[in-house]
């Protein structure tokens, strides 16, 4: 039995714990490639990868592009804005046209949940989800898990709290799915307006009091608080949020000595995370970014090596 058989990476729901472990294990080898003087291997030579982003992104997009280039694939970027979509073309048609140029893999980000799945159903090329709506962001969760495993040795039994706007966060959803599959104890914490009702069904604990949960956590994962949430009346004010849930030096003192402070970026300094802690010794935010390239190399390498058996006659 092969350790990996997926032609696409759409979410972590469809991966087994073993498959997640296999991605993390493969990423370890790719991390070494990025540390070389010559940061390039010929593994995907001759493959063409298109990244199709309908939402702004610098980190994820750059990370995917570097990952593809370090594997010797050819890459191009297409952005949704100013594309043929504004002329009335459907997204499936647009993707099929791109595929018709003999593209092997499409990386897609879209504000509507399910778009990557829709494309995967209609394309022979591999599809990798780089974030769809509030649903999932599998490579972010994989790189978070890689970072935790790298720093703490294992994920099983570790206590992780995800703090912030859980309701709108695809990063939180993918991390919950992945971390619980690998046996972590996950708690979500935030204002009640930003915690979805019934989230416990995903196998997590809920807390509305960050100070009560901090002391026994191994990992504190802060989410970006979007300023628009105040205008949408989820919050009375950003300042109040920063006071009630913002992670700062005082709260760090309450945490375990070897706690990991994580953030998927971009950070709102002084809102969900103080600058002092973000730049401090317990922060692994930049490790997450470094590991992101390795994890995405692993995902591209694995998905591109698998034939799409479902579509073969």
């Amino acid at each position, binding site marked *: 039995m*092969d*350790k*990996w*058989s997926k032609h696409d990476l759409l979410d972590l729901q469809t991966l087994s714990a073993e498959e997640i472990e296999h991605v993390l*294990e*493969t990423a*370890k*080898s*790719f991390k*070494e*490639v990025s540390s*070389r*003087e*010559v940061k*390039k*291997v*010929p*593994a995907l030579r*001759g493959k063409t990868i298109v990244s199709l982003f309908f939402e702004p992104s610098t980190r994820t997009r750059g990370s995917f592009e570097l990952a593809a280039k370090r*594997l010797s694939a050819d890459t191009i970027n297409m952005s949704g804005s100013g594309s043929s979509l504004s002329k009335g073309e459907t997204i499936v048609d647009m993707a099929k046209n791109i595929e018709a140029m003999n593209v092997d893999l499409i990386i897609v980000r879209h504000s509507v949940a399910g778009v990557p799945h829709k494309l995967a159903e209609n394309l022979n090329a591999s599809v990798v989800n780089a974030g769809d709506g509030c649903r999932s962001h599998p490579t972010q969760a994989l790189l978070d898990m890689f970072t935790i495993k790298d720093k703490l040795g294992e994920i099983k039994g570790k206590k992780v709290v995800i703090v912030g706007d859980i309701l709108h966060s695809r990063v939180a959803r993918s991390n919950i799915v992945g971390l619980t599959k690998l046996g972590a104890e996950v708690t979500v914490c935030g204002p009640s307006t930003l915690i979805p009702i019934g989230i416990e069904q995903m196998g997590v604990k809920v807390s509305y009091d960050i100070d009560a949960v901090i002391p026994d956590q191994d990992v504190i994962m802060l989410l970006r608080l979007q300023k628009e949430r105040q205008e949408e009346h989820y919050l009375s004010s950003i300042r109040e949020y920063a006071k009630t849930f913002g992670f700062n030096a005082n709260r760090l003192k309450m945490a375990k000595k070897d706690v990991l402070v994580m953030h998927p970026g971009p950070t709102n300094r002084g809102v969900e995370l103080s600058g002092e802690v973000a730049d401090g010794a317990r922060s692994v935010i930049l490790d997450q970014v470094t590991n992101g390239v390795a994890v995405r190399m*692993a995902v591209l*390498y*694995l998905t*591109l*090596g*698998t*034939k799409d058996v479902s579509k073969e006659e």
Partner: protein
Amino acid sequence: MPRKIMDSESIKRALTRISHEILEKNKGIGEICIVGIRTRGAFLAERISQLIEQIEGEKVPVGILDITLYRDDLTLASSQPVVHETLIKFDISGKKLILVDDVLYTGRTIRAALDAITDFGRPAQIQLAVLIDRGHRELPIRADYVGKNIPTAANESVRVILQEADEAADEVIVKKVGANG
């Protein structure tokens, strides 16, 4: 019927001879470094380095090379082979690099290894040491140090068993492909 070609004693003697030959050819330990190809080449590289240390009383740097990402048959496989880490924690530029593998067959693994090494630096020389040379080369590649030459048929396989990798006593076995045992 599987044929036993070497046992642990003859493997040990072959590696000892190779270690002496490496030192003789390179006139001592000088600028030598040793890099083994995963999985069994890496263990053999470690053994050769220990033998050289016993002879010369000095350590030589040892590294491990994973050639998966440099294979020329990646697009042919139905799923990707498992990638392992490459561990070369020293500068190979200007060194005499001894590349070590267990079996030399088509030469394609060595071709991939040469490409990989080039990405790490520019050694002054690359020499090749193998435990078994079984013939049937598909590329213009030859070994500088050979433990044992074994004439084989294309439908036979050569299996090197090493304690470190297989948790069994060292031996080299030749058998028909597809036959049991």
